[in-house]
């Protein structure tokens, strides 16, 4: 068995700085969008007093959810002792940290008063899920940071499974918290469900694995490092089972809502009559983001191939964004019943289905956060030994030998 060696990215100057420059440009565009929105106020966006959370939130929540799932490969190696996942474990930790940073950057940049971020860090209402999440997010950085250090530092590697377990528990709590941001909103008929916490946990597994696979495949290709068929097939199977689990949770969530008569209106809006939202749900979330990736991952011709796994991962990410759009925007588009049983109308758009068209600054702010996450990963793999010299089964420790301690 070859020794498992991790090494910094060795791509030449242009192969490294070229893509980084493109990402830097997108981050700069995102920053410009942030300044434009903050100077003029949010009236220059597609958001208003009916749709208070928009496209930036769709991307931010997607990234935050995916960040926790990006740790899957490391968790499978450390917590569940599947050592064949070990070569990519450090990259998995790094991607989860960078993706969380990208998501939080979008959220912070969209605040009405981003200059008061220090207020958010010094004044806490502990009944607020948002306030609790601030601790969960900062704790995630600390725990995964330590976990990453333990994985990379040979003298500390014997503690890495313990750190991995702590990170695993923490991220389950973190994503439960993110889902509960919506789940506890009893005023909105699309939410008001305790299932949203665990549903987001399952979504995080598939979105994070998909996002991680895109990054890992790109990084290995970037530096022309080997990835053998067995590893690719294994990662593909992991993505497949998690994608199937996401579809299951989607079905359970909507079936429980459909069981309650008072939710029939919102459910028929989101799943059948709401225009863009049923389209995004059935074609985006379920079709492109669930059924098609499963077909690709299990079809004999594409099963276990690098192109097949990459295509499935890209589709799962797109499906995840569609899901967040339906969950966040669709829920606000549906009018809140203030006088149930009465038809309502007002100059403040009561009783109406609210329209939303994302503006260009919102799109750039969102893409800026994605680019920031990607740029951080790029710098990370350049300066830290995160990528395996080769990602093959022969470079992994023997998978079943009992004395080997998981890292």
């Amino acid at each position, binding site marked *: 068995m070859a020794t498992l060696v991790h090494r910094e990215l060795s791509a030449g100057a242009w192969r490294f700085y070229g893509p980084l420059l493109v990402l830097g440009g997108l981050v700069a565009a995102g920053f410009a969008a942030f300044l434009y929105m*903050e100077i*003029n*106020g*949010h*009236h220059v966006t597609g958001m*208003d*007093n*009916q749709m*208070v*959370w928009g496209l930036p939130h769709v991307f931010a929540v997607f990234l935050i959810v995916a960040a926790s799932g990006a740790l899957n490969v490391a968790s499978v190696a450390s917590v569940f002792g599947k050592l064949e996942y070990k070569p990519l474990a450090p990259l998995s930790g790094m991607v989860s940290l960078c993706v969380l940073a990208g998501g939080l950057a979008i959220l912070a940049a969209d*605040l*009405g*008063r*981003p200059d*008061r*971020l220090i*207020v*958010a860090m010094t*004044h*806490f*209402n502990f*009944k*607020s*899920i*948002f*306030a609790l999440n*601030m601790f969960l997010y900062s704790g995630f950085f600390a725990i995964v940071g330590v976990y990453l250090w333990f994985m990379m530092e040979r003298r500390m590697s014997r503690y890495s499974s313990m750190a991995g377990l702590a990170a695993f528990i923490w991220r389950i709590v973190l994503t439960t918290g993110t889902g509960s*941001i919506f789940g*506890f*909103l*009893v*005023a*909105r008929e699309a939410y008001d469900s305790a299932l949203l916490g665990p549903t987001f946990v399952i979504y995080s597994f598939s979105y994070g694995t998909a996002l991680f696979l895109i990054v890992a495949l790109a990084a290995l290709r970037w530096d022309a490092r080997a990835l053998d068929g067995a590893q690719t097939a294994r990662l593909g199977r992991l993505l497949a089972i998690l994608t199937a689990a996401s579809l299951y949770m989607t079905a359970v969530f909507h079936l429980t809502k459909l069981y309650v008569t008072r939710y029939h209106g919102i459910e028929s809006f989101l799943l059948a009559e709401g225009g863009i939202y049923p389209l995004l749900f059935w074609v985006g979330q379920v079709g492109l983001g669930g059924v098609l990736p499963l077909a690709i991952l299990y079809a004999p011709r594409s099963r276990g191939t690098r192109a097949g796994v990459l295509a499935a991962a890209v589709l799962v990410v797109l499906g995840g964004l569609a899901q967040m759009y339906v969950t966040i925007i669709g829920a*606000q588009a549906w009018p*809140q*019943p*203030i*006088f*149930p*049983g*009465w*038809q*309502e*109308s*007002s*100059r*403040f*758009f*009561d*009783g109406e289905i609210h329209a939303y068209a994302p503006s260009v600054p919102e799109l750039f702010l969102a893409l800026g956060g994605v680019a920031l996450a990607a740029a951080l990963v790029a710098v990370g793999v350049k300066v830290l030994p995160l990528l395996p010299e080769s990602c093959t089964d022969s470079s992994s420790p023997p998978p079943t030998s009992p004395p080997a301690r998981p890292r």
Partner: protein
Amino acid sequence: MSGNPRRGFLGTAAAALAGVALAPGIRLIELAGARAPGEPVTAKVRWGMLIDTNQCATGCTDCVTACNRENGLQDTGRPRTDAQWIRKIELKDLNGGRQHSAPVMCQHCAHPPCVDVCPTGASFKRADGIVLVDRHTCIGCRYCVMACPYKARSFVHENLTDQKPDVPRGKGCVEGCTLCVQKIDRGDGITACAEACTKAGHGAITFGDLNDPQSAIAKRLRELPNRALRADLRLDPGVRYAGV
């Protein structure tokens, strides 16, 4: 010592004069249910409103206009992003077609969801039941807007000019009906919307202390069948509705 009779007389006269001078003020404070300056807000009072939709006229927006004037809310020509502290909702019963009109504003819940979700504690409830936003600690996350069942919160989408000195507002913060807290604190004893509604001759809005059994609002609440909006959520709002 028998003391100086003239000094005694002067003392008594001064005390009587002070009493005569202060008594109306003290009586006024009592009448208005207001606090003396410097006195903290207490839970002895719970401010609230009763909206009688049988008295509320369809098409009349005097309460909205009065609120906007009192609190310095301006029409920018962009209704989707303009702040709206009070609005008139036109209602039609889905069974039978009965029609009503009702002003809706922050319901000043005893258990406000906006206060629960606010990460910094900027959304808060005063001891006297008024739900407010601290403009110094609001970070503009809009979680309270998402959480409010009454659509009572607005986010300030653009720069503000010509603000009222006693109604602090600001771009990037969330705001909503304050029950004209500036008027209550100076002892007016009525909100701008209730004042305008009375002036228009409708008398659909009664404002007062829910804790005082002798108050006009308490008496009307006893007389008229009334309910809380979205009573299923059990938020115990300070604003009640009769007629719908």
